[in-house]
């Protein structure tokens, strides 16, 4: 499809004559992936900021971490027959 501007038509014909580099598709895909990672990081960052703003959220995060991280002690108590499931 041709436009009415001869300068633009010349320019577009010159662009079409140039072969695209081999790595262009990889480059585009990597950029898309990077954008996705940045978006996810920004979500985590926003979540961290929200937690930092509230004392209750900070305590909740610490307690959740404690519950997960202390699971080996729970297993130890179970093995020592102090806990029965």
């Amino acid at each position, binding site marked *: 499809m041709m436009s009415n501007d001869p300068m633009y038509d010349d320019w577009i014909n010159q662009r079409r004559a140039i072969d695209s580099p081999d790595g262009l598709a990889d480059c585009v895909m990597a950029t898309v992936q990077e954008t996705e990672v940045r978006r996810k990081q920004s979500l985590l960052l926003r979540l*961290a900021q929200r*937690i*930092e703003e509230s004392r209750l959220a*900070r305590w909740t*995060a*610490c307690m*959740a*971490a*404690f519950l*997960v*991280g*202390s*699971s*080996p*002690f729970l*297993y*130890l108590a179970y*093995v*020592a*027959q*102090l806990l*029965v499931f």
Partner: protein
Amino acid sequence: MSDGNTSRRVPWVAMSLSFLSAGIGHIYCGRIYKGLLLYFSWFVIPLSCFIAAFVEPSAGVLIGFVLLPVTLVMIIYLYAAFDAYEIAKRGGSDYELKDYNRAILYWLLIFVWLAYPISLIAGVREFVYEAFYLPTRSMNPSVVQGDRILVNKLWVQKQFPERGDVVVFRNPEPTGGRVFIERVVAVAGDRIVIKGDEVEINGKRLERNRIPLESLDGIRDQIDGDPFYESNSGKRYKVMYGDGPAAEIETDPIDIVVPPRNVFLLGDNRDRSRDSRHFGPIHAGDIIGHVDYIFYPTGNWSRFGVYRD
């Protein structure tokens, strides 16, 4: 070791990381050596338990080599979290990021943390010490219902059971519990004769002397029969008769020679025990271990420590 970027160290993040896995909070704050030391603190438990299993049982060994290391690891875990919080708080906002300050490393260490202590505990349980809770009265008045005992599994590798030893073994019958605890009364080659309450080993009747109830103060509520001291090959241990209806334990008279590599086991509460009188002698390979300690006695704590007859 650094890439020149600076970042603020957030105290609650340091604390949360440390709670997830001791030492990660320190690594997050740039204290990698201290962090790794705290991270691997769980190795203290198998090392000390291994040593404890090889030395002569004593209350000091139980406390120093089994209970203290467990307590120490718990204290280290809590200390690591609060110390990481303080380090991050003091650190300010110009912490220079190190090569290892990467989320992927934190997640990897946390994942390993959730697996490696459990493997160490399972290893100790499988090969060194296993704890058991006694749900029955079959060993009253020696080890009473509700006691938690520690069984040395390395003991079976070192020696063959002797008369008077209290052992835990795999139940040879398809019904009932997974394991039983009983006392070895006769070993391979012994001729054992049991008629009613009388037990004879190699033609010699086992002597019994009545125990005054006052001397069993801590476990009086568990004594429903007549306690005796029974002597067998120089060892003296407590047994009990008359607890429960006799019909429950009635067996035919026994007169057998214990086969090679087998032992004959009886529960100390003779009228409430299912033992070799019912299922015959047990192969030594079915013995799991020797009862070394009562680490959580029911009722009175005077029985805490080494299991003694």
